């Protein structure tokens, strides 16, 4: 996979190729950080500080 990408990167010299690779990596990271993760994050929740009954997040009636 990475070898294939490397072969298809633009540029003749090693330096331009390395720069293109860095730019590509930066784009992927930005896409994950600003688009994919904000969409994915609310769907998985690790930290929920509510005291509640057996069903977390159904917290409209904490008194039972």
């Amino acid at each position, binding site marked *: *996979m*990475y070898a294939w990408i490397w072969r298809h990167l633009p540029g003749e010299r090693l330096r331009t190729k390395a720069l293109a690779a860095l730019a590509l990596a930066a784009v992927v990271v930005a896409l994950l950080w600003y688009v994919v993760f904000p969409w994915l994050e609310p769907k998985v929740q*690790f930290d929920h500080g509510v005291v509640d009954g057996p069903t977390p997040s159904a917290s409209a009636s904490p008194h*039972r």
Partner: protein
Amino acid sequence: MRTLIRGLGELCITAGLVLLLFVAYELWGTGRYTREQQDRLGKELTKAWQAPAVTTEKVKLGRGLALIRIPKLGRDYRYVIVEGVTRADLRKGPGHYPGTAMPGEVGNFVVSGHRTTYSAPFNRIGELRRGDRILIDTRRRQFVYQVTGRRIVEPDDVEVIAPVPNHPRRRPTERLITLTTCHPKYSAAERLIVHGRLVETRERVAAPTSPQAAD
């Protein structure tokens, strides 16, 4: 065959890197959303407080309710408390359990917040000791609570948020505050509970000293 195995290995490494990045996002990236929401809620709240009071004022779910400040955790420690404790509410900031007492009322004013992720408002409430002050600002008054104790309970231990903590049947006579958050850090296995009692009620200073609220 070799290409296949190599491809598989590269995929695994990539997945690992993406997961690491996701952990970093959880811890530091999610705060951006909370900061935006806190700014918005803070402005809404200041505006609402400047407007004349309506006789039947009722806080809506997901809206700002009061300000919490804890001097021990720094001069800038200041969050808008949201009404509601659903996941969506707690992403915006600390949340007040609907149905529990309002600030300054007889009973238990219960606030829950994230210990990590989403700006981690309650990250350091474990450092609170007996006697530390928790300040709650509402439209007219500032309620000064003093920490009375701290404990660690199971996640389903709802008795700690009863009007009289640990005595769900008893009628409340005292004005209490309870903060709840996750314990230990980065886990949700238990809950850290901080109890406090109202010691003073005073007029809220019109313009809080922090620069954010001044605009």
